[in-house]
């Protein structure tokens, strides 16, 4: 198991959890203050290349934070899938960013820095915060008139690795090099526009930059854990669960779950497209194993009451997918016990035998039912009448509410 991030809600009582957040906020405010982020002329003068203090703090912080996150992920301490990565909304992000830029140069602060300025009794900071409250009010009143734009161009949890199709280690090196270059260039600009002599700054910053680049290279060499690595870490814990069949859901339990409206049921049918077209459960999504990695982010981001049921013709293929999903930290994943074949054995009556097709002999992970046509979910057994069946089974579905953070710092 990858130990971090912690799931504070299940570990701590609410007051203690809030104490942790208070402490993080305290350190955040403290560091912003010692970095000079409460001084609006410093914030503004970076846009005239005179004093790039804020620019330096900002990009150093991004690189240090990034390196530590990906280093701890590479050595298996931190699960990158479980930390909040801002989803991408293309156009609302760009337009909102440009408006923020205008507010930045006019107001001399951003929200976080204005709070620190207010806390250190800067009157201009107070006015910025007041304006900020008005801005929230105006947004709430106007956003409905363009909600299509606000919610459009959505790309979900999209990372730079996805955009450039490069491994995380390579992106980490590139970002580090870019930041070091930008910081060096910033010092040159300060020399020209701000009459600052870079030679007077402590030499230690060169060693610091060297350490950051070395760390980035080390991260790229170690590499991020693959699904197989992640499963290897998980196997000691989960192998026993498989042996005890803790995640194999009886068809009767699945049928009851169809009618449990407290749960958000997601059925993943991992069989071939041909089998899926012949017969599948009503509302089951066709997702062959090779499409699973791309779907992991969306599955993690689903609501907390989501239960995912994986099914194949028998159990072998579904169990492999279950391992991959569990290794990628997708919560509440189960397997349809006996697969589609067992489902048909359970629910295909004489009527289905006549109407849909007939039973045949087949090997493992082959469909043991020959259909008259590609019926999809039109065969009645795809959605059996709940009132006609009553099963005794061991209840397997237990909703585990441990999920990735569902909102960032700006929700």
């Amino acid at each position, binding site marked *: 198991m990858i130990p971090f*991030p912690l799931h504070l809600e299940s570990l701590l009582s609410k007051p203690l959890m809030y104490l942790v957040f208070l402490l993080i906020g305290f350190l955040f405010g403290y560091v912003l203050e010692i970095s000079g982020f409460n001084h609006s002329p410093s914030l503004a003068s970076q846009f005239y290349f005179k004093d790039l203090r804020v620019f*330096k703090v900002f990009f150093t912080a991004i690189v240090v934070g990034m390196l530590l996150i990906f280093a701890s992920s590479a050595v298996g301490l931190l699960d990158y899938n479980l930390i909040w990565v801002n989803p991408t909304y293309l156009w609302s992000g760009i337009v909102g960013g440009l408006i923020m830029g205008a507010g930045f140069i006019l107001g001399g602060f951003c929200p976080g820095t204005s709070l620190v300025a207010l806390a250190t009794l800067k009157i201009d900071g107070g006015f910025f915060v007041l304006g900020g409250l008005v801005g929230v009010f105006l947004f709430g009143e106007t956003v409905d008139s363009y909600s299509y734009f606000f919610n459009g161009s959505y790309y979900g949890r999209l990372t730079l690795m996805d955009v450039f199709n490069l491994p995380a280690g390579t992106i980490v090196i590139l970002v580090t090099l870019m930041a070091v270059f930008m910081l060096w260039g910033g010092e040159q600009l300060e020399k020209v526009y701000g009459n600052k002599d870079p030679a007077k700054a402590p030499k230690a910053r060169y060693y610091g930059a060297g350490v950051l680049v070395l760390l980035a290279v080390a991260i790229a060499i170690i590499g991020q854990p693959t699904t197989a690595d992640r499963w290897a870490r998980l196997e000691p814990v989960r192998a026993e669960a498989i042996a005890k069949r803790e995640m194999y859901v009886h068809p009767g339990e699945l049928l009851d779950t169809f009618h449990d409206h407290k749960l958000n049921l997601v059925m993943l049918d991992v069989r071939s497209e041909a089998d899926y077209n012949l017969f599948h459960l009503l509302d089951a999504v066709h997702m062959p194993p090779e499409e699973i990695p791309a779907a992991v982010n969306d599955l993690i981001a689903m609501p907390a009451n989501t239960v995912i049921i994986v099914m194949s013709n028998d159990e072998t293929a579904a169990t492999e997918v279950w391992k991959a999903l569990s290794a990628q930290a997708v919560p509440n994943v189960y397997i349809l016990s006996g697969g589609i074949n067992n489902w048909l054995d359970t629910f295909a009556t004489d009527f289905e035998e006549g109407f849909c097709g007939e039973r045949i002999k087949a090997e493992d992970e082959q469909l043991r039912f020959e259909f008259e046509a590609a019926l999809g979910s039109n065969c009645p057994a795809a959605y059996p009448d709940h009132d006609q069946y009553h099963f005794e089974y061991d209840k397997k579905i237990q909703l585990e509410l441990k999920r990735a953070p569902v909102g960032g710092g700006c929700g």
Partner: protein
Amino acid sequence: MKKNINTPRKKFQLKDLFNRPSQPYANPYLGGVLLGLVLFASYFITGNGLGASGGLSRFAAFIEDLIAPGHIDQVPYLLSMAGGRRNPLDSWIVIVTTGVLIGGFSSGLIHGRTKIETNKGPNISKQTRWLFAFIGGILFTYGARLARGCTSGQALSGGATLSAGSWLVMFSIFGGAYALAYFVRRLWN
């Protein structure tokens, strides 16, 4: 109880705390490393990044809830934070924001920088500075709501986790500010 008036040594006065000589700010690279450590600690322990505008939004929703509770239930954006009996301040981001205020105040106090003043460019009056701070605040949070995060929640946190959208927002913020900087240079120079 009577106070002893004849105290030999100088009596401690609260205002002395705010009149100490200001110390210079930390080296920016050191500040950056420390900020990076705090950011990492936040992700490592809680899985969440840092943020600020979320706290402001919820505070604004709280005020609106006090003034016009019926109105909240008609505005979908506010509804998610303060609809019905939900308290908009009962959120981790509000706690973080409170911590930011205490942390900033403490550091300012320790280093003699917590004092009532207005920082501005040399060629404008205080009142002009206040007006533009107010306007800038409106624009910034409006944009932050539209982009779903500000410099902390998008650029800093999303930048470190390599979110593609956050890097886009970051470049848009800096691009917008640099593009406009020349035209408003009188504000700061």
